[in-house]
């Protein structure tokens, strides 16, 4: 039983000497967290815009300046000829073009309706929708102000508007990073632990030291545990670094209970290490081990609710996502961090993780035993 500590020590000795691996385990995540945090918290702004002003009145210029001052739009092009806009959109130089029709200001004075065309690059539906939202908002404000002017003239014709008072709970500034960064930390933990454990055993097999170990009285479970513990420890260290970084750099407050989170993390580790172990027992070469792990990782990433909301997936996909342990961990991490959830709020996730962790791990161990024969 105590032989395990020799295996553990050996693993750490090896890792300590492998500068490249150390960098990958410790430095790369920090870099990624840095980049990720900023990307994900980016609001849609700097929208490259072209304006086609066919009215050329002080009114139209007033509208244009509103767009400029909103801070969302970068008006990079002024075009008189509407047909040229196609070229701008095709080349990707603009995301949106706003066409102010001729006689706009005249029509407004005469209470005639004018149509302002908004040409949107619809490839990214999300961004397009948001952009359109901004345009609508700016124009609506413009219209409201104009209506106020008419109030003095024609009180009967005053629109009655419902104003929504929006209050955001738990994350009032709608900081994406609060929401994303803990999830990123989990994702990084997943990558590192599953990759390390997947490659770890295949590696020894490939260089021949596995055989040497098998000739010794070392029991198989001792080998297994001895290999897994260092990976688990490394995973935890990485998690701690990531979370500390989140706190220090992004000032993400940890509202909930750290101990509770640590507990969940341990259970989650069983799943990722189990996955790596399973791959290790199945693959014959390091390349296969990597490819297989990669496949699982991408699946886990995309179906975890981390970036793409699960609620919006078609039902069959949602059912499949229930098989993804990372899904539960992402929920746990967010609920604990941002909402300060207590155990009774998230015990379902805990149960799921235990079931998954236990199953995957046992399965992996069985496959490992079988393979060792």
């Amino acid at each position, binding site marked *: 039983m105590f032989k395990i500590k020799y295996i553990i020590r*050996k693993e750490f000795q090896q890792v300590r000497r492998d500068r490249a691996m150390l960098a990958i385990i410790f430095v790369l995540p920090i870099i990624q967290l840095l980049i990720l945090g900023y990307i994900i918290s980016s609001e849609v702004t700097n929208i490259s815009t072209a304006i086609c002003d066919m009215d050329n009145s002080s009114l139209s210029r007033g509208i244009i300046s509103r767009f400029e001052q909103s801070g969302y739009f970068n008006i990079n092009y002024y075009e008189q000829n509407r047909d040229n806009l196609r070229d701008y959109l095709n080349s990707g130089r603009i995301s949106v073009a706003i066409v102010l029709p001729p006689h706009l200001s005249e029509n407004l004075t005469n209470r005639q309706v004018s149509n302002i065309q908004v040409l949107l690059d619809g490839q990214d539906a999300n961004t397009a929708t948001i952009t359109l939202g901004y345009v609508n908002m700016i124009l609506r404000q413009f219209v409201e102000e104009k209506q106020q002017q008419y109030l003095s003239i024609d009180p009967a014709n005053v629109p009655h508007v419902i104003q929504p008072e929006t209050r955001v709970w738990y994350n009032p500034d709608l900081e994406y990073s609060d929401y994303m960064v803990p999830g990123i930390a989990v994702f990084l933990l997943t990558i590192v632990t599953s990759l390390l454990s997947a490659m770890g055993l295949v590696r020894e097999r490939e260089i*021949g030291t596995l055989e040497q170990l098998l*000739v010794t*009285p070392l*029991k198989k479970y001792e080998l297994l545990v001895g290999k897994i513990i260092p990976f688990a420890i490394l995973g935890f260290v990485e998690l701690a670094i990531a979370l500390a970084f989140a706190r220090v750099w992004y000032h993400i407050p940890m509202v909930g209970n750290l101990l509770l989170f640590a507990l969940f993390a341990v259970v989650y580790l069983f799943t990722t290490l189990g996955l790596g172990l399973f791959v290790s027992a199945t693959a014959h070469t390091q390349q296969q081990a990597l490819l297989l792990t990669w496949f699982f990782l991408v699946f886990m990433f995309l179906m975890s609710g981390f970036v793409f909301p699960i609620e919006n997936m078609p039902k069959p996909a949602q059912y499949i996502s229930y098989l993804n342990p990372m899904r539960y961990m992402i929920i746990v991490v967010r609920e604990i961090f941002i909402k300060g959830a207590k155990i009774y709020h998230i015990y379902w996730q805990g149960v799921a993780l235990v079931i998954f962790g236990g199953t995957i791990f046992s399965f992996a161990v069985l496959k490992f035993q079988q393979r060792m*024969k």
Partner: protein
Amino acid sequence: MNSEISVKTSDLTRQFGRFKAVDRISFEVYDGEIFGFLGANGAGKTTTIRMLCGLLLPSSGKAWVEGFDVYKETDSIKQNIGYMSQKFSLYEDLTVSENIEFFGGVYGLTPRELKTNREKALSDFGLEKVSTKLTRELPLGWKQRLALACSLLHNPKVLFLDEPTGGVDPISRREFWQKIYELAEAGTTVFVTTHYMDEVEYCNRVSIMHNGQIVSMGTPGELKARYEKETIEDVFIHLIDK
């Protein structure tokens, strides 16, 4: 060398599909004997050793190492044997000391035993000066010494060597065999496979393998007399040609 049996096989066979890598071989090795297994590549030597070490289950037949059954008592076997393969199987990114400490620990040595045996190993094998060097930096002959040292840390009763001198310079080979002699004198059984003819002369007894079967067995002297040849090499070629 006494007449206690250390390793025994009886009609030991190993098949891979329809291919018989080892075909009903039977032999006995005595305590303190240096027993050689000579044969061309692919003759079945490595498969035999792997079965005796508990790395591979036989397809049929029986075998015992130090009285332990290779089917059911592999744990006990492993506690009593040392193994060294042609690959040396050392951790290149660990130092000489670290490799020794690791394998010692894995063999169940207590920390005190580990310390003593480690120092003994370093001095016995002339590795004191390089104890802190990374294994990958050692020349091949030194790696061989380290591999042998690691396989002996727990004072095993039987030592299995699978083509242990491949690619090593003649002086290192000589020193290696010197060590083997010392071990055998002290009572360790040495079971060695090789395809170097001159090494065969160092063995107490030799068995010649071909196509999975033992075609002849005896002391080098007996074999040369039996087939009326001057060297073992001639004996070997003669038998293979048949």
